[in-house]
C-alpha cells in the first residue's frame, strides 16, 4: 500500500465519513487518487456522490451542522485539520458545478476576478486568453470579451466556468455532472477538454452517464447505499475504469454498469 507521501498520488481519503446533522450521508471512504488522472464517481441518485465531491474542497462547510470524520490528505496535510484554512483549500482544489454559474460580469472579468483575488500580478490579458484557449472557448468569444457572460449559451458558459477555474491553476479540479445540462456536442467538447486538462491537472468527476465515465476516466469509484438500512452511501468498489466496466468484483457494480440495477 502506498502512503500519501508518494508523489504520484494527488489526494487520499482515510475512513472519511460525512454527516448532515446526525444523518451520515457518506461512510468510511478510503481512496487513493492518482495525479494527472481522471477519476469518475458513479452510482445511483442520492448515494452521496456530490456530498463526497464537495468534501474535497470543503464546500460542505456552508451547510449548517455538516461535519466530517476521518481525513482527506493532500501532500501529507489533513484538509480538515484545525490549522487548515478552507479558503486556501479551495484555491488549490477548484470546482465546476452541474449548472453553469458564471458571475454576472463580463466574460473577461469572470476569469480576471478569480485570478485577482488569488493575488495574480502578471499580464491579465494574457492570462484571460490562455485560460479561454485552454477551455476551448477563445475562438468563439475573443471579439466579445466585454459582453456579459450571461449572453453565452449553456455549453459556452460551462466552458467559461472551466476557464475561470484553470485560471487560478488549482492542482485538482472537481466536476459535478459538468455536462448533464448540455447537448451532445457541447458534452463532447467538455470531454475532449478534460483529456487535454489531465496532462496537467488531476480531475475528479461525478457523472450519471456510464458511457461518459467509460470514455473519459482512468479510475472509477462505484458508490452505493450500504444495504444495512442505514441509508448511508459508500464506495463499494474503486479500481481502473476498464476493470469496473468489464470485470467488476462486486455484483452490484456489474448490475449497475450494465443497466440491470435494482
Amino acid at each position, binding site marked *: 500500500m502506498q502512503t500519501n507521501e508518494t508523489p504520484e498520488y494527488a489526494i487520499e481519503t482515510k475512513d472519511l465519513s460525512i454527516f448532515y446533522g446526525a444523518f451520515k450521508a457518506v461512510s468510511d471512504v478510503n481512496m487513493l487518487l492518482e495525479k494527472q488522472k481522471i477519476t469518475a464517481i458513479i452510482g445511483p441518485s442520492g448515494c452521496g456522490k456530490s456530498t463526497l465531491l464537495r468534501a474535497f474542497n470543503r464546500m460542505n462547510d456552508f451547510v449548517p451542522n455538516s461535519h466530517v470524520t476521518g481525513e482527506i490528505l493532500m501532500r501529507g496535510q489533513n484538509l480538515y485539520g484545525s490549522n487548515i484554512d478552507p479558503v486556501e483549500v*479551495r484555491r488549490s482544489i477548484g470546482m465546476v*458545478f452541474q449548472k453553469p454559474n458564471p458571475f454576472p460580469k463580463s466574460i473577461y472579468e469572470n476569469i480576471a476576478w478569480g485570478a485577482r483575488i488569488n493575488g495574480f500580478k502578471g499580464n491579465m490579458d494574457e492570462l484571460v486568453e490562455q485560460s479561454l484557449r485552454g477551455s476551448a472557448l477563445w475562438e468563439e468569444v475573443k471579439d466579445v470579451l466585454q459582453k456579459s457572460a450571461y449572453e453565452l449559451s449553456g455549453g459556452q458558459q460551462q466552458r467559461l466556468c472551466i476557464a475561470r477555474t484553470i485560471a487560478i491553476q488549482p492542482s485538482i479540479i472537481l466536476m459535478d455532472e459538468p455536462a448533464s445540462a448540455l447537448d451532445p456536442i457541447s458534452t463532447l467538447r467538455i470531454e475532449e477538454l478534460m483529456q487535454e486538462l489531465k496532462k496537467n491537472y488531476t480531475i475528479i468527476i461525478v457523472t450519471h452517464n456510464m458511457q461518459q465515465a467509460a470514455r473519459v476516466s482512468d479510475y472509477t469509484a462505484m458508490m452505493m447505499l450500504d444495504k444495512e438500512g442505514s441509508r448511508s452511501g459508500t464506495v463499494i468498489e474503486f479500481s481502473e475504469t476498464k476493470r469496473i466496466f468489464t470485470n467488476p468484483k462486486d455484483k452490484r457494480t456489474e448490475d449497475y454498469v450494465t443497466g440491470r440495477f435494482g
Partner: protein
Amino acid sequence: MKNTIMENKNFRPLDLKKKMRPGESVIQSLLFISGVLSIFITVAIVYELGKEALLFFNNPDVTLTKFFATTQWQPGIGLFGIWPLVTATLTTSAIAIFVSLPLGLAAALFLSEYATPKARSTLKPILEVLAGIPTVVYGYFALLFMTPLLQSIFGESVQVYNMASAGIVMGIMILPLIASMSEDALSAVPRSLREGAYAMGATKFETSIQVVLPASLSGVGAALIIGISRAIGETMIVAIASGSGPNFTFNPFKAAETMTGHIARISGGDLSYNSIDYTSLFAVALMLFLVTLVLNLISQVVVERFREKYE
C-alpha cells in the same frame, strides 16, 4: 390499495369549447381600474400643484429669474429666491443618506451573509419595529439628544437648531428601511453564485462585496431611491430640529429651513386664500416634486450603470 391515478379515469369529459369565466374578467377589470386610478390620482395631484403654482408665477412681481437666480426667500416682502429652501433640503437629505446607506448596507450584508438563520430571524423583526417609530419622536430625539451631542463634540459652532442633527436622525429613521430592503435583495441572489465564488477561493468578504452585492444592486438601488424620497419628503424631524427660517447655507451646523419644513410652518399659520404666501407654497411643493423626481432619475441611471444582471 389500488392507485386510481395510474388508471387514468379521465374524470373530466373532453370539451375544448371556449368557456365563460366571469371571475377572470371581474378580476381583470378590477386590476385595470386600480392601475388607471393610481395613475389618475398622480396626474390630478400634479395638475392641482401646477395650477396653483401657476397663480404664483403669474404674479407680476415674480419672475423665473428671481425664483432661480436669487438666494433669499420671503414672499411676503417680495423675495422669491427658492435656493435657501432647496439647499436645506439637499443638505439634510445628503446627510441622511450618508448615514443610512453605508450603515443600512452593512446591516443588510451582515444579516444576509454573516448572521446565522436564528440571529437573522430575531434581528430583522427588531429592525422593522424601528421603522414604526413616529417621526415626531425622532424630531425631539434630534433636538434634545443629537444636538447636545454634536455641541459637546464640535462646540459653539453648532446652533440649537441645525441641519446636521436633523439629517443624522433622519438617516437613523431611514436606516431600517434601507437595511430591510437591501437584505431582501441580497438574499434573493442565487446560492449558486456564492458557491461559484467560494469555489474560486474567495473569502466571505470578497464574495459578499464583489459578487453578491453587485448582483443585488437593482434591489439595493430601489432601497436607495425610496430612502432618498423619504429623506426629501420628511417633514416632522426637520420642522422640529432643523430651524424655522430660510437660510442659504451648506453649513450643516447652521439652522436652515427645508422645503417641507417651510410648507408645514407657513400653512400652519393664518393664510388668506390667494395671498402670495399661500400660492408660494404650491411653487415650493412643485419644486419639491421636481427635486425628488430628478434625484430618483439620477439614482436609477447610476444603479443601472453598476448593476450586474444575473437573470
